[in-house]
C-alpha cells in the first residue's frame, strides 16, 4: 500500500537536499523545523523569565498586564497569531515605512516572532506558577542569612523554581515542536511544508506525510528523553529516597 520507493526517493528533500526533490533551497525540511523551534524557544524563554517575575509579583500593576498578555495568547490559536503577524502587519503604514519591514515581510521572521510570543506566554505561566510555589522556608532562610532581594532571587528562588518547572516545560517544548508544523501554511518549507510540496507533485498522501510524521515522532522521543535526563540531574533532590 505504501510505495517505499517514493519514500526513499523523496527522503533527501526532508534534509534540504534540492536535487532530490522539487526546487527547494538549502536548509529546508528538518533543519528549518529545528531552527524555528530552537530560535523561538530561546527567544521565548528570554522573554518569559522577566515576565514571570512580574507575573508572580504581589504588585497588581505589574502582574495584571502580564496576566492579560498570557491570557490572550493562551486563549487564541497560534495559527491566528501567525496570520495576524504575517498578513496583518502590512495593514500599518508605519511598520511598512520602518526598518522592521525588511524582517516582517519575510515569512521566516513572522513565524519566529509569532512562535516566540506564543511560547513566551505559556512559559511565563509555567515559571510564575513555580515561583509562587517556592517553599516559604527557602526564602526565609535566604533573608535570615542576610541576602538582598536580588541575591535571594538569583541564588535561591529562580534556580529552585526553574528546576521544578522542568516537567511542565518539557511538555511545552513538545507542544511547540508540533506547533511549528503550521509554518508550512505561510509558504515556509519546514518538515510539513516539504511533505506538502511532495504531495502536490506526486498526488500521493500517505508517503510524504507519514515520512514527516516519523520525523516528528523521532524528535518528540528525543526531546522527551533529553528532558528525562535533565530531570534526573536537576530534580534529584526531589526524588523519593529508596
Amino acid at each position, binding site marked *: 500500500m505504501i510505495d517505499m520507493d517514493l519514500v526513499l526517493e523523496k527522503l533527501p528533500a526532508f534534509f534540504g537536499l534540492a536535487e532530490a526533490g522539487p526546487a527547494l533551497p538549502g536548509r529546508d525540511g528538518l533543519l528549518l523545523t529545528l531552527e524555528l523551534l530552537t530560535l523561538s524557544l530561546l527567544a521565548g524563554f528570554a522573554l518569559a523569565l522577566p515576565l514571570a517575575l512580574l507575573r508572580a509579583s504581589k504588585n497588581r500593576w505589574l502582574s495584571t498586564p502580564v496576566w492579560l498578555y498570557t491570557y490572550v495568547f493562551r*486563549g487564541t490559536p497560534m495559527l491566528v497569531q501567525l496570520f495576524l503577524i504575517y498578513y496583518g502587519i502590512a495593514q500599518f503604514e508605519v511598520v511598512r515605512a520602518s526598518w522592521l519591514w525588511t524582517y516582517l515581510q519575510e515569512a521566516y521572521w513572522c513565524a519566529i516572532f509569532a512562535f516566540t510570543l506564543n511560547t513566551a506566554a505559556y512559559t511565563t505561566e509555567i515559571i510564575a506558577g513555580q515561583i509562587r510555589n517556592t517553599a516559604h522556608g527557602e526564602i526565609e532562610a535566604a533573608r535570615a542569612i542576610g541576602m538582598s532581594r536580588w541575591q535571594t532571587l538569583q541564588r535561591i528562588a529562580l534556580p529552585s523554581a526553574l528546576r521544578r518547572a522542568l516537567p511542565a516545560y518539557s511538555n511545552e517544548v513538545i507542544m511547540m515542536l508540533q*506547533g*511549528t508544523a503550521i509554518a508550512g501554511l505561510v509558504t515556509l518549507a519546514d518538515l*510539513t511544508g516539504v511533505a506538502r510540496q511532495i504531495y502536490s507533485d506526486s498526488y500521493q*498522501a500517505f508517503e510524504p*506525510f507519514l515520512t*514527516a510524521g516519523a520525523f*516528528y515522532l523521532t524528535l518528540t522521543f528525543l526531546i522527551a528523553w533529553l528532558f528525562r535526563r535533565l530531570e534526573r540531574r536537576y530534580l534529584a533532590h526531589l526524588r523519593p529516597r529508596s
Partner: protein
Amino acid sequence: MLEDYLPGLFAGLWMTLKLAALALLFAMLLGLMGAAFRLAKNRPLALLAELYSTMVRGIPDLVWMFILFFGGQMLVNDIALALGLAPLDIDAFIAGALTLGFIFGAYMSETFRGAMLAVPPGQIEAGHAYGMSRLRVFCRIMLPQMVRFALPGFSNNWLVLVKSTALVSVIGLDDMMARADVAKSVTQQPFTVYLCVALLYLAITSISMLALNRLCARYSLGIREAEL
C-alpha cells in the same frame, strides 16, 4: 466595509462550534475506549491503545489532518475503484470532525486513564461484591466518580481542541479562518479581520473556562482540599 463580513465570520463561528462539539463527542468515545483498553488485562489491546496514544501525541495535528483527510480520501477512492463504484466524495465536515476526534481521543484517553486509576479500587470491588456486572460497575460507580478527577485534564483538552479547529480550513472547511481569508482579501484590512477572529476564539475559550470551572466546583462538592 468590514461590517459586511461580520455575518460571514459569525457563520464561520457557528461552523467552528458545531465541528468542535462533534469532534469532542468522538474524542470522548475514543478516549473512554482507549483508557479502558489501556487498563485491560488483555496485553494486545493494552499495547494497541498505548501505540494509538503515543503515535497521535507525537505527530502534529496538522500532519494528522493531511494523513487522514487526503490519505483517507485516496483510500476510499481506491476501494471504490476496486469495487467498480464511482469515486465517492467524503463530506468534509464529518471527515474534519472524525479527524479531530481521532487526534483528541488520544489526549482524552490519557486523561481518562489517570482518572480511572484515581478512583479507589475498593469502590469497584464493593460494586462487584454486590453482584453488579462489569458494565454496571463502570456506569454506576466508575463513571460518576472519575468525572472529578478527569475534569481538569478534560478542560485543558477541550481548550486545545477548540484552538486546533483553526486548522480545518486547510482541508476545505468553511470555518472562521476560511471566512477571514476571503474577508481579508476584499477589505484590505487583514489585521482587523484576524483580530476579530482572535476575539471570537478568546470568547469561546473564556466562556468554556468559566463553565468548566463551575462544573468542577459542582463535582468537588463535599471534597475538602488540603490547606497550607
